[in-house]
């Protein structure tokens, strides 16, 4: 039950990750434009895999956060750690999970 609550809270308040409203707007822009270079502007995939909510249904936000921060060695997915804080990566993971 406790675990369920935690998950609910995380989903309901993606901004819980410590990110300002300004920065959130910049991150949203970054997802669309820069992630979109490989994953498609509508995130339906390209050289990279689809990142739609449907495609990420079984992915947990912490796992996604790590992929965003450290990339996937041996693939074209780069580590974004030099450009993002852990909170910002978590914000993106939650944003992707919650996006229509």
């Amino acid at each position: 039950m406790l675990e369920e609550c935690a998950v609910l809270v995380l989903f309901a308040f993606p901004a819980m990750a410590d990110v300002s409203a300004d920065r959130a707007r910049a991150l949203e822009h970054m997802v669309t434009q820069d992630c979109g270079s490989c994953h498609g502007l509508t995130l339906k995939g390209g050289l990279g895999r689809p990142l739609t909510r449907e495609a990420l249904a079984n992915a947990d936000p912490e796992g996604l956060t790590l992929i965003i921060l450290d990339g996937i060695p041996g693939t074209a997915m780069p580590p974004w750690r030099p450009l993002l804080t852990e909170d910002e990566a978590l914000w993106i993971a939650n944003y992707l999970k919650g996006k229509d």
Partner: protein
Amino acid sequence: MRALAALAFALLTSTALAADLPQAVATGDLGLVIERASGSLVLIDRSDRAALGRIEGLGDLSHASLTYAPDERFAFVFGRDGGLTKVDLLTRTIAARTVQAGNSIGGAISDDGKLVAVSNYEPGGVKVFDAETLALVADIPAKGKTVGLVDVPGRRFAWTVWDTGEVFLGDFSGAEPAVEMIGNAGKNPFDAVLTDDAHTFLVGLFGEKGVTAFDLWNPAAPPQKFLTDYGKTGEDMPVYKMPHLQSWAFTEGQYALPAVGRHEILWVDRESQTQTAATPVHGQPVFIIAQPASPYVWVNFATPLNDVVQVVDSRSHEVVATLTPGKAVLHMEFAPRGAEVWISARDDNAVLIYDTRTREKVGEVQAEAPSGIFFTARAHQTGL
């Protein structure tokens, strides 16, 4: 009476001519700018440095590109969502459109202008269409995502496959397509380019170091891999945007190539295919484009260092100018004789026009999140 009729006819004709003439438009100095987020194109006039209008309804245009029919009237736009759209520059309308795959990455038109080929990610392969009607002519499936599709003289196309490294040469001049695997480029080709003489098909590799060259004048010749030990000594930096090879610069007997995972331009001697120099630059190069009729190449960079454009002299390999045209520079297109370069700044919603001699800004055209800029002069260039 007869004279009257003749006069009436003459009047009619001249009125008709007068009505037609001012509307006549030449397309030789026109171009299209892709508005990647809104699925639209801006029609531009290079001589007037102006936008003429907008064409909408082209679907997902992230990473879109286009090519022109030989008459410079029609453009074929390759969308990310598998959409292939034929656009009429004269009427500024969509002449034909087909959603031919789920996910695509560019295309090419045959040397005679009769066929349009599209490179598809999902399902992987190449589809070939009649340029007049967009009816499907051939469907060549692949074991993965096809990249680096180019036109080759003789109604042929060449392409490679990201997943397998295979390189294919397809001949569509006969009743049936003849597709031949001409070799394997290596691990994860990310793009390819044809030299301006249509002699060498250069395939850039992402999964390993190096570039593989295929001799299209003699496709039976074994491919040559070069730059194979480049960068093995150092730690590579992350690549936040794949470099593009379509505009690899060929200048002064050299190839100017983007290093992958390094903030450098690599110079390779065309004859010996050996590296002759490396130029440290501002970031990960994305496009390196030769300024026509000059010794200079212009380069833009991957995010987050994408507000800068640098100019490099291909004789000295030195950076001779560093410009900051705008936020998120995605593409550069030169006037065919090199006098101007048009630069798209996505996050400024603008295309900036620079004089290439003074390197000063001389104009600006508004566009929503612009990416690729394509002048109609491309209609007559092999490999574009």
